[in-house]
């Protein structure tokens, strides 16, 4: 119908209230009301799937790193069993031996996170330098907030300490006589 209004687009302050607002309009007025969330359902499903995938990848990487640290420390315990035995003979308590390996796990995690952060920062700079639109602007701007570096370091250190728990326990329970004999 010429001259009539065929559609009205609304912009919401909170875009995620679109479903609720569309339902209210449809209930009050004899019009068809759709939210952008419903019309882009496939996009949302894809986004949700991507978020779940990222979470799964992050968890897998975290577990791999923890297992990597744990296996390095298990080897370290085996290689140093004689030294552990000597320290026990000198009067080192089981707690002191445990602390050595827990601290080592924490340091490995912390140093790993520092290297990882530097590497991530480097790749980001490279991306923003070379991946640009024809007008010279970046494809999309990515910024890593400083708090994320701190959080990463803290989480990696905790992860390292937790990964070291089993090797540390194993080291502390070594029989000094057997350990010294090798």
């Amino acid at each position, binding site marked *: 119908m010429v001259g009539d209004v065929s559609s009205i687009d609304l912009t919401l302050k909170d875009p995620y209230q679109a479903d609720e607002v569309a339902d209210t309009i449809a209930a009050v007025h004899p019009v068809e009301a759709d939210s952008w969330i419903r019309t882009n359902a496939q996009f949302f499903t894809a986004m949700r799937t991507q978020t779940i995938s990222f979470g799964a990848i992050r968890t897998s990487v975290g577990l791999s790193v923890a297992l990597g640290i744990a296996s390095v420390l298990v080897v370290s315990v085996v290689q140093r069993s004689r030294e552990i035995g000597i320290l*026990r*003979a000198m*009067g*080192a*308590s089981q707690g002191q031996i445990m602390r050595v390996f827990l601290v080592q796990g924490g340091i490995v995690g912390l140093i790993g996170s520092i290297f990882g952060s530097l590497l991530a920062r480097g790749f980001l700079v490279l991306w923003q330098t070379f991946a640009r639109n024809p007008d010279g602007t970046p494809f999309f701007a990515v910024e890593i907030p400083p708090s994320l570096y701190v959080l990463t370091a803290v989480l990696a250190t905790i992860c390292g300490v937790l990964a070291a728990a089993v090797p540390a326990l194993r080291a502390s329970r070594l029989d000094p006589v057997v350990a010294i004999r090798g």
Partner: protein
Amino acid sequence: MADNVLTLQGIRKAYNVGTEVETEVLHGIDLTLAKGEFCALIGPSGSGKSTLLNIIGLLDRPTAGSLAIEGHDTGTLDDRRLTQLRGHSIGFVFQYHHLISAFTALENVMMPMLVQRGFPDAAMHTRAEELLGQVGLTRWRNNKAMSMSGGQQQRVAIARALAVNPAIVLADEPTGNLDTKSADTVFELMRDVNKASGTSFLVVTHNMALAKRCDRTIEVVDGRIGAPSS
């Protein structure tokens, strides 16, 4: 006797206790070590010398009998107290010195004090320097353990054993891995330390010539003490 730093009464040690293959390797050992005594422990391989030394060093527990170190009955102590007593009263010298390879001679000597106190301090450093001077290794104090000769490493091990001024030093074949000259030097060094500081030594050795130079020789045969000789 109050002057005994070590008293063993009826020490027995059996493995696989309560099973069909229970094996007793020490059959009621009675032994004393007086303060300042330098004693050799001899016997054929498999006679129980190492087991006895591990029990005296509080690294292993006897199946029966009593063991007192500096008057402390160790039978009533839990693992934590045994570890503390071991750290304060006993020094070890092993056949293969067992220095920590990543550390220097000075750091190795400081290690027992660090274990006891938990943090390094200037007094610890001074004590380690003194001990390395005593064993004639001042020039090599900053050398990594692995860059020293076998004799030098064993001298570092002796300095380390003396770091916390223990009442007893237990030496398990300390010259067994050394040439004749180095063995003699290391033995003389332990003798000098014994005379100068009054630290008691119990030295396991297969070298009868060295054993004869000790105050007393104790022979272990088939898990029993043989006839003593002076």
